[in-house]
């Protein structure tokens, strides 16, 4: 997060200052690329490149604070991801990319690797892979960007009630996976008294 100097950085970026553009990029690139990766986008780095080019092409018309900027950028990211899926005429990535996600552990730092290992061991990645595309897209906006329901609904172009349902089902799936890991002998888990 850039924080307090964000308005000045944004103004400089809108004026074409490349240092400011790079600063914004360094700040939001993990969010954009991570969101694409977690949604199993094919070639997330290439898709992210398209997102940033699109962002820069519309940057001059943006007004708002940093929080709004991140939401605006995620809107571009989400739409670009949907366009990519529609163009390819398939789900974001088949087959189930659990192994693909795990393979990236090799490129992660120790803390990131530990986190990914825990997610795999506890079945969270499997649970996320088992979600529908909409459930996963909403869940990751909530988890990675920490956005409220209202903004997620706006980004996805869905009613808030629908987004709440998506989040509830997605969260329940992850919770069940965690329960199964905590109580391996209890099929289904999550309903232990």
């Amino acid at each position, binding site marked *: 997060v850039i924080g307090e100097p964000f308005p000045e950085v944004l103004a400089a970026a809108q004026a074409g200052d490349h240092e400011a553009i*790079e600063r914004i990029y360094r700040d939001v690139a993990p969010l954009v690329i991570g969101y694409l990766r977690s949604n199993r986008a094919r070639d997330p*780095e290439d898709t992210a490149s398209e997102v940033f080019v699109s962002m820069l092409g519309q940057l001059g018309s943006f007004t708002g604070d940093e929080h709004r900027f991140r939401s605006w950028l995620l809107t571009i990211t989400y739409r670009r991801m949907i366009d990519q899926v529609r163009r390819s005429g398939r789900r974001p990535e088949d087959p189930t990319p659990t192994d693909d996600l795990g393979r990236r552990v090799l490129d992660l730092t120790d803390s990131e690797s530990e986190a990914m290992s825990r997610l795999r061991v506890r079945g969270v990645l499997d649970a996320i892979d088992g979600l529908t595309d909409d459930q996963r897209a909403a869940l990751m906006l909530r988890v990675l960007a920490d956005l409220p329901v209202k903004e997620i609904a706006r980004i996805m172009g869905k009613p808030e009630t629908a987004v709440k349902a998506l989040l509830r089902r997605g969260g329940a799936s992850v*919770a069940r996976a965690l329960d199964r890991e905590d109580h391996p002998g209890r099929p289904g888990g999550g309903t232990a008294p």
Partner: protein
Amino acid sequence: VDDDRDPFDDPRLTEAVDDLRAAFLTAPDDDVARRHLDRLRATPVGVVPLRRRRPTVAAAAVAGLATAVLGLGGVAAANGSLPRPLQAGVSALVGVVGIEIPDGDGGGEGVGEREPAEVPPVPPVLPDLPAPGPPVVDPGPGEGAPGRDGEIPGREDTAPGRTGTAGETTNQPEAPPGQTGDVGNKPEEPPGQTGDVGNKPEAPPGLDRAPTSPPPSSGGAPAGPGSAAPGRNE
């Protein structure tokens, strides 16, 4: 199920959420970042909006009010119901573009007073005589318009081959059809019978009587392109 409850209030998910953030919110590789930044440097900062802004309620209200004022004002102006100075101004303004509305001088009765003047007067019997009655306010398409000055449609005093006045043409009804070689503008006349005589500006004055002469008598006219036309004897 409580729809308003945030599913991520579940403490079981807290650790998983932290792990997801730690695993996915990672800085891109240097190569990837360099590639992205190189592409961004080649991209101009644009000002293209995501979508057109919707008009605000205030803007829509102002537009609606303006439309209503203009519409009602136009109707009032057409009826001559505006205040006299305003009516005169509007009348002068729209008169520039050829739209006539009452100017308010008649106290709101301008329409009734002006309408008779716009009706074309009865065509005079003799074309060369001045039209009786008051002068026409709006002469319309012109004084030479058919029916206004008695001129026969399709004929002109300056038509080639004619030197007489329009009044002489009134004596021509007895001329047999097809033999009035000077009347070159009659559409029903076959080609060739009029072109040679009517279109020759150097035609002798004797051709003035051509309408009453049989075809052979008009042979004095110089041979023209139409001299070999059907129905003509050399």
